[in-house]
């Protein structure tokens, strides 16, 4: 299955990755190769087969909604690339 440069642009937008023209060409070629190989899974008969998202019988886990100590504000903001007055600072959005 070949994937076009235009499809790469669409996927890159969904994935929030800005790509150069060269990168778009390169990734279109490489992703096509990989998808051609991965496409082999279509050859298997999976009628009536349930998908496995997880090998364990996982159930949702609940806990009591109780107050308890968490990370301090300083710790939470420790790695923020931009902060102000105890908050994360982001570019203007409105």
């Amino acid at each position, binding site marked *: 299955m070949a994937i076009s440069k235009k499809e790469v642009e669409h996927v890159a937008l969904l994935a929030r990755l800005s790509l150069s023209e060269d990168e778009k060409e390169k990734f279109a070629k490489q992703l096509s190769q990989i998808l051609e190989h991965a496409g082999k899974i279509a050859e298997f008969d999976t009628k009536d087969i349930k998908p496995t998202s997880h090998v364990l019988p996982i159930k949702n886990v609940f806990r009591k909604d109780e107050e308890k100590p968490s990370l301090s504000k300083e*710790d939470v903001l420790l790695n923020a690339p931009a902060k102000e007055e105890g908050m994360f600072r982001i*570019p203007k959005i409105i």
Partner: protein
Amino acid sequence: MLHKLTAHELHKKLMNKEVSAVELCKNVFERIGVVEEKVKAYLSLTEEPALSMANEVDEKIKAGNDISHLSGIPTAIKDNMCTKGVKTTCASKILENFIPSYSSTAVKRLFNEDIVMLGKTNMDEFAMGSSTENSAFWITSNPWNLKTVPGGSSGGSAAAVAADEAVFALGSDTGGSIRQPASLCGVVGMKPTYGLVPRYGLIAFASSLDQIGPITKDVTDCALILNAICGKDLMDSTSLDTEIPDYTRALTADIKGLKIGVPKEFMGEGIDAKVKKLVNDALKIFEKMGAVIEEVSLPHVDAALSAYYLIAPAEASSNLARFDGVRYGHRTKQKVENMVDMYSKTRAEGFGDEVKRRIMLGTYALSAGYYEAYYNQAQKVRTLIVDDFNRVFEKYDVLVSPTSPTVAFKVGEKFENPLKMYMSDICTIPANLAGIPGISIPCGLADGLPVGLQIMGKTLDEMTVLRTAYAFEQEFGFKEKPAL
């Protein structure tokens, strides 16, 4: 020569007061000083805190307190496990300056045993790769031949142990990232059953596949480390609530009557003839020790690579969405128009090519119109593979195969061809898809480079996997060391 010894050998010396933990720590740092320039296994070294941890262990010994089997043992940690106050980069520019405010559960459990952490090891960026060449910082060399790769993604951890720059290390394994580098570097590496070691604080790649495990110099050390890191953690809802046995009880060297299956799909065309020969020699040793060997078939396992390279990138594309330049990590310095522009430029600058490829692959497989044909179909194929394993494990105790189709390949050899690189994992990926345990142990040298033997077991049957591995190790006695 202390750095050459295993954890269980060093524990005896510490208990007998033949050596102090500080002496041991200094000795390993001296070794690092000599060989690290060539190997480049570490992304960061933490000598000062290491010496103070060692000193605390010595104080405990002096005071006559009990110490654990791992107390004072110099340890390396893969750089995708959070270590409080110590930079954790995932070998990515996007986390170049990230300092976690908490430690991962596995690391915390080792700290509770008083291990001495030496530093954080190199890896493929976000654990995506099979050669450690995808590190954003530098490549690590295989100690056996510096022109070859150490495997990946836990290449730094495996190289550090092989070069005696650490007594043992932690790695993580999503599609073979512990076992394949262990194989290429001639050391022991184990991926436990999915969910046995909590993933809290392990920077997520593919959550339904990721598993932490030990890289060690022998099987005994592997069992000791499992004893320390396995077991339920409330911070990871996928960690298993199961009784943890004493894994050292598996080290009996008795495999009389053990039923070993050899999947023919793992011994086919894609496997190098020299690798196959050493695996066949190993099977003869098992037979001599009283095991019963039979060929088996896992008919759907040929689809494992394809299914994996849809499932793992799909999960990765979701997990890596958190790197947005807001709460932590790199943010672009370029002028931005809006938030989407900020995210897109930040991520383009912060991620390397392989990570971008997998994010896009996963996004594509999950996107409208392709979900059914790719992601959902891959999950159904995963079911077929799980069923294959369940069927053979009704009759056999363990499965034996090569760990890697080849010995260590040359730096650069597969770097430009992602698909060729992905083939490095054909023997290891199936165990991740099925969630079962697998170990790689050295079974000889081909052209002077190590070959690894993979032993896979039933879900939560680490005991039988370790027993089989230990029996082989005792009988075979791999004593070679790289000449560095």
